[in-house]
């Protein structure tokens, strides 16, 4: 799965020992929705095995950027993306890249839990099935179980795997969607405000989960909650009206940001 290109190896070497390697990279990314430009020349590195939080007021382009990373904007007819986005050094918008394979490597969890109207088991087994990841039922059972365990949902649902996924509570549904994303063994998981539809207890569980997942995955999370960004992320990128304002280690961003807009936003003065 993890076949590294030369460029990626080079990056790893360059990054040295302290800094984790760059997993995905956006270079002067512009996005237009029809006539309207939503992103202006964004340059942003996503580092391996770290949680990168994208923050900024509504409509600032953070979700748009997130959706570029696995080309979910392709499903919107009027969206146009220019610039360069790489995954392990490969351009994901290269016509030779199969978008279906890309999305298997870069999974996504959405703002509103969107389990399929199928059983819990089928929800998780869906990805492995379409990608032919398993040879037999036992292997598939294994993937379902381990994915649900990684998503910290196994204990709650192990006795009712055949019940509908839509019958779970909101927090459970969101963890089911995370399990579903994990089941195809992605390298990167994109999360678009994964907790905005959840109560504080469910949010705490999902945040805890994100922290654990960091060990094996690279995570990019869009969030409106400053506390959440501070709690779960190692790096933070601040967006404002389509521009990347600044990006850096979360600690620095929240204590001593370079840009006044970041300062104002995280202290609640605007947005």
């Amino acid at each position, binding site marked *: 799965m993890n076949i590294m290109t030369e460029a990626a190896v080079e990056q790893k070497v360059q990054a040295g020992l302290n800094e984790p390697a760059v997993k995905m990279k956006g270079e002067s990314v512009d996005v237009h929705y029809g006539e309207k430009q939503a992103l202006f020349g964004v340059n942003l590195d996503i580092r391996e095995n770290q949680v990168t939080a994208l923050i900024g007021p509504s409509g600032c382009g953070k979700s748009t950027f997130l959706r570029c990373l696995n080309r979910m904007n392709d499903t919107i007819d009027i969206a146009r993306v220019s610039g360069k986005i790489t995954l392990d050094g490969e351009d994901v918008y290269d016509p030779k890249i199969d978008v*279906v394979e890309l*999305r298997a490597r870069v999974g996504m969890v959405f703002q509103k839990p969107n389990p*399929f109207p199928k059983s819990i088991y089928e929800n998780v087994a*869906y990805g492995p099935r379409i990608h032919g990841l398993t040879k037999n039922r036992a292997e598939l059972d294994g993937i379902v179980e381990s994915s649900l365990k990684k998503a910290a949902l196994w204990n709650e649902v192990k006795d009712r795997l055949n019940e509908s996924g839509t019958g779970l509570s909101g927090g459970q549904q969101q963890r089911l969607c995370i399990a579903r994303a994990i089941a195809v063994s992605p390298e990167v998981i994109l999360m678009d405000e994964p907790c905005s539809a959840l109560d504080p207890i469910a949010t705490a569980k999902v945040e805890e989960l994100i922290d654990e997942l960091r060990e094996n995955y690279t995570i990019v999370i869009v969030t409106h909650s400053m506390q959440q960004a501070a709690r779960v992320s190692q790096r933070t990128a601040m967006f404002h009206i389509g521009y990347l304002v600044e990006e850096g280690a979360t600690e620095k961003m929240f204590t001593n940001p370079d840009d006044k807009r970041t300062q104002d936003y995280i202290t609640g003065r605007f947005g």
Partner: protein
Amino acid sequence: MAGYLFGFMALAAFVAAFLGAARGRSKRFAATEKTHSRPIYHGLNAAIWTGVPAFVFLLLWLLFQNSVIDMLVIGSYPGADSLSGSEKNLLISEIRQVAAGSVFREPTPEITAAVAHLKSLQALSSWAMLAVVAALVAVGAFLGIRAIQTRYPARHSVERSVTWFMMFSSLVAILTTAGIVLSLVYEALQFFARVPATEFLFGLRWEPQIAIRADQVAGQGAFGMIPVLFGTFAVSALAMAVAIPTGILSAIYLTEYANERFRAVVKPLLEILAGIPTIVYGFFAVLTVAPLVRSLGLSIGIDSAPNSALAAGGVMGIMLIPFISSLSDDAFAAVPRAIREGSFALGATKGETIRKVLLPAALPGIVGGVLLALSRAVGETMIVVMAAGLIAKMTLNPFESVTTVTVQIVTLLIGDSEFDNPKTLAAFALGLVLFIITLGLNLIALRTVRKYREKY
């Protein structure tokens, strides 16, 4: 007369509305405190008071006046007490005909006297009607306009009236259905009094053309509905075999693949298909499709009738495509975008997403559409009357002609018919069977459609 009265009532209601609105607007009310209702409501309320009671009265009067007059005329006819029900009906229709001026033979003095009586009663009735309607309009207008006060809740009373009217409208369909069922059941019972129900339900021969008059040459008669029902199901099955795949595939293409321009053109065209009168489909079936099917059948060496089940069923299937495609279309469109994105985000292709996520999620809606189309197919008449056969045959060869329940109902009721003869009455028994089948299909369809609303 009644027509003028309806016009008069409408005019009076209109005038009352104006007067009421003007009164509601006048300074006297507005000056002191805040008015409860705007002038338009006062006007509408006055109009309702003026028009509705008179309207209801007039309807009831028209409904019952003839039977009351008949009863009075018969009651005063000498020796009427000894007459039976049907003789009384004959007598009254003779009296009415004479009164209308169509005389076939010299009326007896009794008839002449009765005619005079009838005419005087009719004149009395129309004057009484006029007087009561005028009185109701006047009293209603007076009460309605007098009721207008600053705090009079005309808004509420108008809305209450409208609610009543809506309830009445919704009852019309139900009452009509009940009436249809009752009349069907009544005639069907007449039939079952003459032909045993077991023979009808389980008999394998259908030869209903028995003699109605003694001098007619006709068959012995057999009333087993199974071959006819078989024909209906054969034609419906062929129709569904055409309509289901075409309808669902076109819905999938239109919702998931087609671009906006293609969709904007094709969707209305598809819906036009639903608007073509079935008799036009019938022409198409009998003049174009049937000969094609026959020559196709003969060319591959199958015994083919000029009117084949395949021609009728195929054309019917085309007629049903829009039903299935537009309901499936809705079902696909109802699947939330988030669920599609969830599937795409896992690296599923469009085809996989449609097959594994959209289709199962939309299935109940599609099944609902299919069942509705099926009940249309079972009840469809014109296409099969023109393109299917008349002889009841149980055959699995689609190039053979079959007959259907609806075709048989039509042929039984055409030509000589008499309502104490099993041949005619059989039509009602068949109608009842058809009604029960389509009702059952519709119930299942509605239930499935309702279930899918809870799905996500």
